[in-house]
């Protein structure tokens, strides 16, 4: 039986929801609506000329090989970033959960990267890995690695994935650690008494019980990789070399704000919006089924 709690007055719930709805309307529905509107027009930046072009902006994207490259780049980038950030965050949380001394120090130190602004993080990584002046790059080259993210797409991709994942690890770490600490010790002890080693306990007890946290983090990390990594890519590779790190969001920015092509940029935003809606629906329908909120 589900308990139903109802409000006595009809207007109160709307009043309570009001502020949130207002924020959503102003910061989401209005700009999103405007993007959809602009995607049907070809306009000059200052708005002097606006020509209705129907679906031409979309058509232009869908016949452009660069756009498909960008989709592929985004999938690779988001997949790798999510995987790297989740795995590292999880491993660190497992170790921090076991640490006996200095837990507070480890926890605080691990949370720092999250507080660094993406542009600053990007600048930091480029100072380490730029082939002509990066200190770590110098080491790599001295070791005989032909390190050149300015011309080698795979190197550039590695660099932005590591930089983007690095920034997100802290967030994942905090949630995984909280999740781990919420698992009753008695369950783990029971498994240990039944003869399960640390590996088996992790696999059969801890990971299934963590699934709500993991699912939440997958959704958050994919959204992060899609949207919030713009600053890092901007600072580290600028989408290069030859489009190798030109993700969909970065392309929206360059087309809209550097090239002043509002129509093309809006059309890309609309497509991106649908991709993310589709991804979220997929995640909830197929992955969430395997999550137990015990």
């Amino acid at each position, binding site marked *: 039986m589900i308990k139903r709690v109802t409000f006595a007055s009809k207007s109160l719930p709307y009043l309570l929801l009001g502020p949130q709805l207002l924020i959503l309307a102003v*910061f989401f529905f209005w*700009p*999103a609506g*405007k*993007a959809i509107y602009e995607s049907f027009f*070809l*306009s*000059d*930046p*200052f*708005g*002097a*000329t606006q*020509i209705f072009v129907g679906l031409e902006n979309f058509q232009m994207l869908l016949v452009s090989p*660069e756009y498909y490259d960008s989709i592929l780049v985004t999938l690779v980038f988001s997949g790798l970033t999510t995987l790297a950030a989740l795995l590292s965050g999880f491993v660190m949380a497992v170790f921090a959960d076991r640490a006996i001394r200095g837990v507070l120090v480890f926890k605080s130190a691990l949370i720092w990267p999250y507080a660094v602004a993406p542009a600053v993080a990007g600048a930091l990584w480029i100072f380490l890995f*730029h*082939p*002509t*002046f990066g200190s770590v790059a110098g080491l790599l080259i001295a070791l005989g690695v032909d390190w050149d993210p*300015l*011309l*080698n*797409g795979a190197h550039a991709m590695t660099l932005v994935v590591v930089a983007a994942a690095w920034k997100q690890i802290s967030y994942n770490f905090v949630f995984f650690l909280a999740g781990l600490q919420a698992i009753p010790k008695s369950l783990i002890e029971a498994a240990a008494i039944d003869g399960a080693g640390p590996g088996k306990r992790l696999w059969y007890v801890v990971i299934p019980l963590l699934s709500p946290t993991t699912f939440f983090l997958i959704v958050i990390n994919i959204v992060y990789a899609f949207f919030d990594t713009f600053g890092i890519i901007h600072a580290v590779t*600028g989408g*290069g*070399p*030859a*489009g190798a790190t030109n993700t969909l969001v970065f392309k929206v920015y*360059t*087309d809209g*704000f*550097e*090239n*002043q*092509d509002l129509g093309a940029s809006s059309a890309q*935003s609309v497509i991106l919006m649908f991709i993310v809606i589709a991804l979220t629906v997929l995640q909830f329908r197929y992955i969430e089924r395997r999550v137990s909120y015990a």
Partner: protein
Amino acid sequence: MRQWNLGAAGAAIVLAFSAGATQAQTDIQWWHAFSPDGKLGQTLVRYTEEFNASQSDYRIVPVHKGNYYETLNAAVAAYRAKKHPAIVQVVGRGAATMINSGAVYPVHQLMKDSGHDIDWSRFIGPVLSAFSDANGPAAMPFNTSTPILWYNVDAFEKAGVTGVPRTWDELGDAGRKLVKAGYECGITSAWQIWVHRDNYSFIQNQPIASQGNGMDGFDAEYVYNATRFVDHIKRVRGWVEEGIYTYTGRTWQGGHEAFYAEKCPIFLESSAGYGGISRNAKFRFAASFLPVEADNFYPRNSFLGGAALWVMKGHDPAVYKGTAAFFAFLASPEMQLDWHKNTGYVPISLDAYDLAQKEGYYKEFPHQEIAILSLSRSVPTVNTRGMRLGFGVQNTEILNEELENIWAGKKPVEKALDDAVQRSNANLRRFERTAGN
């Protein structure tokens, strides 16, 4: 979309603050792209302070809006919200967008309407023509530079390079000797499109696009995949393979670091790179003209870079009177000379140049003269008057991508340049539809 809202909000806040100032004075907003933390921004702010102190009717309020793109975006957003500044600094490649925007009050008109009699013929021709419409200069040139050849004199001596390379082939020979002498990266360049396409083509009198590089009509098409530029890129591609030319990125930072660290003793970079080079180079350096082809005995004027000041429509007459007075102040030979000495940008008027010569400034700093000589060394031809092509920023990025494909050996030179031209021409056709109206 978020940036739009922020830009408009920022504009609103700025206006709210300025509205509280004294009523007798007219405030004039100037949005610019030079951070007040740097030398350029500090010099700019000092000029506004000097102007404000020199009279009591107007007050110029400089507002740093971020880099060139952020500044332009802020101005576009503010214009749509009717909260735009009177003066905005816009990067050279934005000239086509600005001139056709319908949002601009042309500077020649502004100066005439305000009763300032400016002798435009005393300005450096190719600088002015880059920003001119049919009736005269539409914008006020502000920070103007051009690429030159910077070199490490100590390294030249050590490697036995005698004389400064005059031709591109001599440059290659010098690079070869330098690498042999242990300088690992040889030659590098900042802003490769500006150096290798724009300035190579101007100096060699080769077209970049039809219709006089777009100066004569919106139906221009890129043609650089069928000029001597193609052979030039093949030569540079050969240098990359040979290991005597190193790609250090699309902008300037990598090249500067490689030059400071004495890895690349030859650096093709803006004359305005002087500030950084003079501060960071721990060796003797000098500068010369960008190289030419061996058969080129009449090198043409080079192509400028930097930004200009545009005046936007929709303000009170008093604002425009003040703006005109400020421009007249900025254009004075004394101010231009001060700007030249402090920043490495060139003075925009011949009077300022004469003043520098009279002072003997170039005896002490000969490299400061190279840019002026290079910009003004011939009568401009149809190929060297300027460049006014829509989506200039995007088309530059497209060529950057394709050049990266060439340097990495992923595409043959012809194929990559054909692809770049084809992709960019599609953009020009798109631009033509809104600009032509």
